[in-house]
């Protein structure tokens, strides 16, 4: 009788294990999270091969070429389109970069607005990446800033003004609704918006944006523009007044203006980690509540299927490099406009505790599911024990840390603004082995924007 029972139990176990393996395998193999989807792209960028990086993104998006947008841009594909937009910009393919930025901008806004309590519950119970993506402020602000750059490169002031307005909407939202003020990304955005409005002939609007840019460090080159514009407009502020103090308005001459924008390196992307609960408790004991700590310690004492899945930041790339900008074989001094990598790290510090807590809460939830199955099958049931462990293992495999982020943001962006005599000039911008060489024709009162995004 006993051997028959064991035999029956064994058969059930085999069937169950086979069924479980069938279901779980695709997930375990296929769910490396967002960072796995972008590995080929990052590897290609590391090698300085931007075209291969575009191909890798296209493969992930299931599209034939960089001109195509995915059929479904509602989910995580929006972040991949954003990644592709930056790479297109690095390849000086501004029309395609615009297309990608604009598609991603709308989708990421939609994802942000569609977030609800269910997403948070999913993050705390099921998987870190189960919720809809919520772009951090620097990402939202950089979308409009970098797309403004695309429009300036193509001398489309109308398009650049639209991006400047979109940037202002987000800035107002972060400042007034979320009380997140003074994001340094705004310094660069305001410089470009000021430049856009200056060249559109809207003096006061240009001065207002320049005033915002002056609130951040750097941007010394704005001074001359402010001195030229101020007599033509009425906008004044303490910062504008300080720039005007003791300085004469520069005289009219036969020069044109060139604005250089150089992005280099890449911000830190997120990587997934799987560590035993005991180790997690050692690392993050300060971040979790006493109740959760007690529950987690209890699980750690069992020593079974107790892995915590959570994301962390990988090292960034190329942040400490020095870009160069040569104009007719003379070096132009670039000044830092924004350290995006530092923004990424600061924003991560703000949410890291919450992410660890949600990872440990998911572990506790998995444990509770296992306990429930065991209780339903009977306290001493062997099948119940195996099912409990199987369910926990399945849920552990399904728990994918949220490694979603805009990975192709430059680590740092530097700017320079120079006035050049009318005539032809040769420009060479170089960073991390990526170079852009261009002949530019300068006329009296003309303007030009030359950028390089060396995302290596």
């Amino acid at each position, binding site marked *: 009788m006993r051997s028959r029972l064991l035999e029956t139990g064994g058969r059930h176990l085999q*069937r169950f294990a086979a069924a*479980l393996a069938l279901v779980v395998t695709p997930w375990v193999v296929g769910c490396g999270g967002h960072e796995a989807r972008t590995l080929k792209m990052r590897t290609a960028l590391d090698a300085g091969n931007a075209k291969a990086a575009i191909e890798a993104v296209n493969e992930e998006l299931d599209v034939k070429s960089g001109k195509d947008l995915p059929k479904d841009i509602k989910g995580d594909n929006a972040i991949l389109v954003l990644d592709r937009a930056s790479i297109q910009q690095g390849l000086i393919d501004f029309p395609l970069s615009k297309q990608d930025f604009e598609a991603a901008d709308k989708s990421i806004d939609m994802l942000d607005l569609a977030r609800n309590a269910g997403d948070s519950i999913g993050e705390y119970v099921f998987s870190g990446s189960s919720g809809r993506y919520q772009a951090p402020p620097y990402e939202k602000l950089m979308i409009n800033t970098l797309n403004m750059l695309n429009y300036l490169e193509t001398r489309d002031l109308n*398009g650049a003004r*639209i991006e400047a*307005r*979109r940037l202002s909407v987000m800035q107002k939202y972060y400042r007034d609704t979320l009380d997140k003020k003074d994001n340094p990304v705004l310094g660069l955005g305001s410089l470009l918006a000021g430049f856009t409005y200056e060249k559109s002939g809207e003096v006061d609007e240009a001065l207002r944006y320049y005033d915002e840019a002056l609130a951040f460090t750097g941007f010394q080159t704005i001074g001359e523009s402010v001195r030229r514009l101020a007599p033509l407009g009425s906008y004044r502020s303490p910062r504008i007044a300080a720039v005007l103090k003791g300085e004469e308005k520069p005289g009219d001459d036969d020069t044109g203006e060139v604005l250089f924008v150089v992005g280099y390196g890449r911000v830190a992307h997120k990587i997934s980690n799987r560590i035993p609960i005991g180790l997690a408790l050692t690392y993050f004991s300060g971040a979790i509540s006493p109740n959760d700590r007690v529950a987690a310690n209890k699980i750690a004492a069992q020593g079974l299927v107790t892995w915590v899945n959570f994301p962390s930041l990988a090292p960034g790339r190329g942040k400490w490099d020095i870009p160069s900008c040569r104009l007719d074989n003379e070096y132009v001094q670039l000044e830092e406009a924004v350290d995006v990598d530092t923004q990424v790290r600061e924003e991560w510090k703000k949410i890291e505790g919450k992410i660890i807590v949600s990872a440990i809460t998911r572990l506790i939830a998995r444990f509770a599911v296992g306990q429930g199955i065991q209780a339903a*099958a009977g306290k001493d049931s062997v*099948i119940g024990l195996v099912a409990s462990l199987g369910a926990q293992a399945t849920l552990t495999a399904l728990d994918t840390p949220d490694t979603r982020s805009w990975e192709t943001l430059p680590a740092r962006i530097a700017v320079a603004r120079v006035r050049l005599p009318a005539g032809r000039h040769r420009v060479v911008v170089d960073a991390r082995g990526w170079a852009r060489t261009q002949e530019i024709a300068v*006329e009296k009162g003309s303007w030009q924007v030359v950028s390089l995004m060396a995302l290596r």
Partner: protein
Amino acid sequence: MKLRFTRRSFAALPFALLTLNTLGCGKEVVRGSNDPSIDNNALSTGLDKDDIQRALKETLNNLRAAPVMNEWRSTNPPPNVAIFPIQNSTSEHIDSMLDALLGEAESWLVESGTVQVISRERQTQMIREVEGQQTAAFNPAHAAKYGKQLGAKYFITGKISGNDERSEDMRRVQYFLFLQVIDVETSAIKWQRKTYITKAIK
């Protein structure tokens, strides 16, 4: 009995998980003439066909009864009218839709037979000549100059501005569309009509 219950649960688990895994897949391409309902839904805060048609219906009905239209009807030969781009002062990239709006207005004018509409290709060429090769974009401040060079008596143009606001759970864009008929010689506004359109994601 207990074992039976557990076996069923085990059998159901893989299917439940597989079902979850396959949910949400499958897209199809639909033709508007076969399924008119696809035009009903607003998909973004930009302008779509429905917005343009509503705005134009209201605006052109007003133009039909305007004094300037009566003047055109009684003028022989019909006056030359140019159609210049609508200045986009919103936070949305809607230039292609504004172009479509002007295209519809152009068709309406041609069909009305009251004016001679100057081809927009010639206008682009003229703008390029006035602005120079480097800045070939339409400059509203030079509209009268373009009109004179094109031999137009009137030009139709407009402006669209917007109020774009964002909260935690909503983004709303309120559009204010103005269409105008301007006398090239005097720059007098002979007709103007405004239309409001609001779009939101919530």
